[in-house]
């Protein structure tokens, strides 16, 4: 069981290299190799359920060696991301036939999977940076995979901005190493929480700001989101799906949360900053989406605002955990944010996959977007869908916190939610009326292998409600929430179990 942790990173890499080494006459079997490999990754991730611990690579222990680390929140992300990866792989086997050189797509896909899994498992901050880069560099190429003018422009923009953001992040990590002499996150957290006083502008603030900036870029949150609509609207549909569902949620959101919580939460109160980034993303994403006509780009902007909700929830929970009276708000914000993260990892890939299904098999037929109603309604937060409860929990946490800032955040977040709901449903009802006939024709020509991921993700848009059955909530959501919250007084936590 223990040995599965490094294999989760090494196996996708090995699969990628085997696919790259495949001799020309065996290229037809690349599809099945890729499918089997990503199912194995999913099964391995599932098999790690309930396991928490540290794996020392090569037998070298913590300050000297590199370690991998898994806990409940990491496992939850791992299983979500592997599920997205498997669905996207199922989808792309037929979809990528319209592109040249499918084999290279698989190679890059597995590089990206290895980077994502490594990001979720890395125990020290420098290795996390390396894994983030591995995933990001694969995604730069994948975004430009179509080789059209639009794709290449988006990929170039993404690559240049991404390299700049990574450089900033690397500076921050270098600062941390210079200040404290280690890059192991647990050790850094201990050292930093032992600091007596942190002055208003200490080197630690600079290091934290620099290190976090890169992850904010990868999460496509407000000030650094401009690459995301271009990249997601230009890339091939499966690439948009995996970038939005797996790459942004793991190398962006998860890495940001993990860095803030494990490393800095001992000395710095970064909760308000994260919540402010989230709130600005909510507002900016929703406002910009309203002025956008193109379907995929509109969805990209709305997904920025969904990332904003997630960051708002986590930041607010971290902020409130230090106040005495609001255990309920901490619970609502924290588990709402985790739940919204899971929903985000389900509905955005679904929307992009469905819009890609409409383009199949004629790649250039982009005037009709295939609208996934389950995904759209879950994103908009319509009651039977799981997106409703997670968004409602975050907004409710803002209102019941009893602070003015919380109330203001709640007003903005709920206004944005209502606006999203009205705008998305209205535009899609119009769309539906016009294109209903065409939609019927399209659904007939999609092969079964492409329908399976769309169906299963659509089902999950509703079935994720099940995570709030008390049995599942106590086994899955609650441990994850506790492992991403700063460890302070046990009395504040746990009164609302």
């Amino acid at each position, binding site marked *: 069981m223990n*040995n599965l942790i*490094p*294999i989760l990173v*090494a196996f996708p*890499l*090995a699969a990628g*290299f*085997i696919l*790259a*080494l495949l001799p020309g006459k065996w290229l037809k079997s690349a599809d099945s190799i890729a499918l089997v490999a990503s199912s194995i990754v999913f099964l391995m991730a599932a098999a790690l359920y309930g396991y928490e611990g540290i*794996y*020392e*690579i*090569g*037998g070298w222990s913590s300050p000297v060696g590199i370690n991998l680390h898994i806990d409940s929140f990491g496992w939850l992300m791992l299983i979500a991301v592997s599920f997205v990866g498997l669905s996207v792989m199922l989808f792309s086997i037929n979809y990528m036939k319209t592109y040249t050189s499918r084999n290279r797509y698989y190679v890059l896909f597995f590089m990206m999977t290895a980077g994502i899994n490594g990001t979720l498992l890395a125990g020290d901050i420098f290795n996390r940076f390396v894994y983030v880069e591995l995933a990001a560099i694969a995604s730069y190429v994948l975004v430009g995979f179509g080789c059209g003018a639009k794709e290449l422009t988006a990929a170039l923009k993404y690559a240049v901005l991404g390299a700049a953001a990574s450089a900033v992040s690397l500076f921050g990590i270098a600062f941390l190493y210079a200040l404290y002499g280690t890059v192991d996150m647990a050790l850094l957290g201990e050292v930093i929480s032992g600091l007596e006083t942190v002055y208003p502008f200490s080197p630690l603030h600079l290091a934290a700001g620099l290190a976090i900036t890169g992850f904010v870029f990868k999460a496509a949150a407000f000030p650094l989101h401009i690459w995301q609509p271009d990249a997601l609207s230009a890339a091939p549909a499966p690439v948009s799906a995996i970038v939005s569902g797996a790459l942004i949620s793991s190398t962006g959101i998860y890495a940001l949360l993990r860095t803030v919580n494990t490393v800095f939460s001992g000395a710095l109160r970064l909760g308000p900053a994260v919540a402010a980034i989230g709130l600005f993303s909510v507002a900016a994403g929703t406002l910009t989406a309203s002025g956008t006509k193109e379907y995929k780009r509109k969805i990209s902007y709305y997904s920025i605002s969904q990332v904003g909700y997630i960051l708002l929830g986590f930041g607010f929970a971290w902020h409130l955990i230090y106040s005495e009276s609001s255990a309920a708000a901490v619970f609502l914000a924290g588990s709402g944010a985790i739940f919204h993260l899971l929903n985000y990892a389900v509905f955005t890939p679904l929307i992009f996959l469905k819009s890609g299904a409409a383009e199949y098999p004629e790649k250039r037929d982009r005037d009709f977007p295939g609208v996934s109603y389950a995904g759209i309604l879950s994103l908009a937060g319509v009651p039977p869908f799981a997106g409703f409860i997670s968004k409602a929990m975050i907004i409710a946490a803002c209102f019941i916190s009893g602070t003015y800032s919380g109330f203001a955040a709640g007003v903005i977040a709920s206004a944005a939610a209502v606006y999203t709901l009205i705008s998305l449903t209205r535009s899609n009802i119009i769309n539906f009326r016009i294109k209903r006939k065409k939609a019927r024709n399209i659904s007939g020509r999609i092969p079964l292998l492409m329908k399976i991921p769309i169906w299963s993700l659509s089902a999950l848009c509703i079935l994720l409600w099940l995570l709030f059955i008390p049995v599942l909530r106590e086994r899955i959501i609650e441990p994850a929430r506790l492992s991403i919250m700063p460890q302070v007084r046990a009395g504040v936590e746990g009164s609302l179990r």
Partner: protein
Amino acid sequence: MKDRSLIAVIISRWVSPFIFLYGVHLIAYGHLSPGGGFPGGVVLACSFILALLARGKLAALKRMPYVFAKKLDASGAFIFLLTAFAGLIFARVFFLNFLNQIFPGQELRLFSAGTVMINNFAIGIKICASIFLVILFISALRVGKDTEMKTMEED
């Protein structure tokens, strides 16, 4: 070929084997002296890049064909991963230096590092192929008098 300097052609032909040999030395003694997989690999690649600069793309591609370089690139990385997996299989810990436990060797001698040497060679092969490919692509994108513009997929 006609406007190439004869001196450059002859000298590069004489020098490049020695550069190659030096690269192999850097990799092989990577665990004992400054050097290792990455610098050694770059030096290995330099011997091919010298041929590319002095005698043109075709001469370099004759020594290191494009498809072969691609396979070498992937196989270097794959060998590295295999040694990591071998640690898991033979000693139950991923990446463990199991060869060093079985066969410690004499300290400060060539065969004293176990799997480190295999890893160094794997990285050397990978870096050699990928640096060569990078330079090859840069030279393929060059626009100018060069009349050897030929799509590389044909080779």
